[in-house]
């Protein structure tokens, strides 16, 4: 039959006649999105390295052996380079690969914790403003404007300097400072959802406010939430690195990438790899998180791509 050749010489099967389900479409979009696949791959690899740090690293990240200090990495044309320390050792003789691997833990821990704290604050404010509107909206917008007008790095540095620095302090200071984008995005996302008819229907049948917020609005704004969460996580990681670099973030001898760059700063003219290696690691992690965020935005809401 000639009709059987309509689909480019192929027999038309049932699969061609049934519209693909949303899940299938989403899967297809994910598999066709190179940025998302590459970013996701790098991120999963870094997370695996961070989780398995004690198994992967051959040394103790705090073990100083001055006899083996400043061994260059293996690609260096130096006689001192050895496969025993593939990325070399730092100025205190600590294995650089080990410190890098444990540093991934610190970055991820700070990125995720600060993102969760800021996510709770920002989402609460944004959803309240978007749902209730009016005075609540004005108040939230005012709080966001005030927060935005204060310089993040400077305030974070000042606060950390006043109350003293530790891992917990850094997480809380960043978490309490970077919720603005959550609030802005959640506000407009909630406003859009609230204009839809099913919200009116839920109000008409007498659903409680908390029920509407949790079961009607929340599922419809969650994709925006994930995209902002990745951006804020990347932001938190960069800020922690900057704070640690300036000496007011994570304190020595903790292996933070920003701190590793800071500690090696004085030696960078003689041993530039000391700052290149943690710098590249930091760059790759933030790049991967941003790629995942952009990719998720593209595949969940293809219409917002530009």
């Amino acid at each position, binding site marked *: 039959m000639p009709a059987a050749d309509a689909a480019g010489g192929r027999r038309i099967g049932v699969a061609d006649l049934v519209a693909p389900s949303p899940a299938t479409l989403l899967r297809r979009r994910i598999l066709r999105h190179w940025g998302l696949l590459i970013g996701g791959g790098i991120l999963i690899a870094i997370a695996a390295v961070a989780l398995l740090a004690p198994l992967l690293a051959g040394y103790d990240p705090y073990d100083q052996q001055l006899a083996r200090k400043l061994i260059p990495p293996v690609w260096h044309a130096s006689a001192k380079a050895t496969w025993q320390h593939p990325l070399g050792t730092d100025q205190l003789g600590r294995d650089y690969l080990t410190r890098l691997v444990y540093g991934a833990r610190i970055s991820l821990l700070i990125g995720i914790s600060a993102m969760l704290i800021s996510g709770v604050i920002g989402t609460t404010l944004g959803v309240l403003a978007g749902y209730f509107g009016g005075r609540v909206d004005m108040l939230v917008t005012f709080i966001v404007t005030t927060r*935005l007008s204060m310089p993040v790095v400077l305030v974070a*540095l*000042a606060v950390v300097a*006043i109350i003293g620095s530790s891992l917990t302090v850094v997480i809380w200071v960043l978490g309490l400072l970077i919720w603005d984008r959550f609030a802005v995005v959640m506000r407009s996302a909630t406003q859009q959802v609230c204009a839809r008819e099913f919200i009116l229907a839920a109000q008409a049948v007498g659903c409680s406010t908390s029920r509407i917020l949790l079961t009607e609005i929340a599922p419809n704004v969650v994709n925006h939430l994930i995209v902002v969460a990745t951006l804020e996580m990347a932001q938190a990681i960069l800020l922690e690195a900057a704070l640690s670099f*300036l000496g007011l973030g994570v304190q020595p001898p903790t292996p933070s990438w920003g701190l590793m760059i800071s500690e090696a700063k004085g030696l960078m003219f003689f041993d530039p790899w000391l700052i290149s290696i943690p710098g590249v690691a930091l760059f790759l992690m933030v790049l991967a998180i*941003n790629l995942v965020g952009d990719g998720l935005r593209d595949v969940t809401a293809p219409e917002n791509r530009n």
Partner: protein
Amino acid sequence: MLAYAAKRLGVALLVALTVSLITFSMIYMSGDPAIAIAGEGARAEDVEAIRKFYGFDRPIAVQYLDWLAGALKGDLGRSYTLRQPVAGVILARLPVTMILGASAMTFALVLAIPLGVVAAVRPNSMVDRFALALAVVGQAMPSFWFALTLILWLGVHWRVLPITGSGSWQNFVMPAVALGYYVTPAVMRLTRAGVLEVLSSDYIRTARAKGLRPMTVLFKHALRNAIIPVVALAAVQFGFMLGGSIVIETIFQINGLGYLAWESIQRKDLPTMQAIVLVLSVIYVGLTLAADLLNAFLDPRLRVA
């Protein structure tokens, strides 16, 4: 327009007031500021003397109003360590940071606007892809590491630019690039989106239909409208840059406000820290106000809000 401007001005003043309150309360975050200044293990009578000298023994509301009244008159208190009025120190350092911020913004705009326009005129072309790649890479690069890498290559390896200081214009090239590249992705994306949107509008079709040259359409008709939001974004980003310049100024040892902030943080010089946060926040509030008013002036549709 006047009603809108008055309303925006009112909000801006309220924001500035709130910021001043938050900035003031920073001193009390550590508990007792007198003990913080005296240092650990200081004698009780010394702590008491310091508390009297700086007026920490008065009610907090009185202290705040006193500080605020001083700030309004241009008196931002005395530095604990420099032993001179903070306002004078800030005024001396502010121009350096402003020059740095202006050069960084110039670099960002010169790079981002042409790229954004070309990317919009030829979507999915090589230039568009290059611009996208540049934006993705730019957003992931830690600014302090980028600055150190610049120093390593341009300053030490090729020896084309001085590494530290703020004496000549060459000193500002690397810091401006390191500070400005972070703004380029946002400006580029906004330019691209704006030009794309304008190019598909009816009046551009009309301009093309009546036979105007493509370049005239692009520059005289399209770009003029597409650039409005970019100007506003640039103003806001300039404010962000002044706040973020602390990292860059510290690395290049540029004697600006950011370096002063870092020094005062190192010395726990609270009045200077407070004053810098306040000054930068107020500048930011002023810039966003100016951007909003400019937008509303150029685009009457925005005046409703």
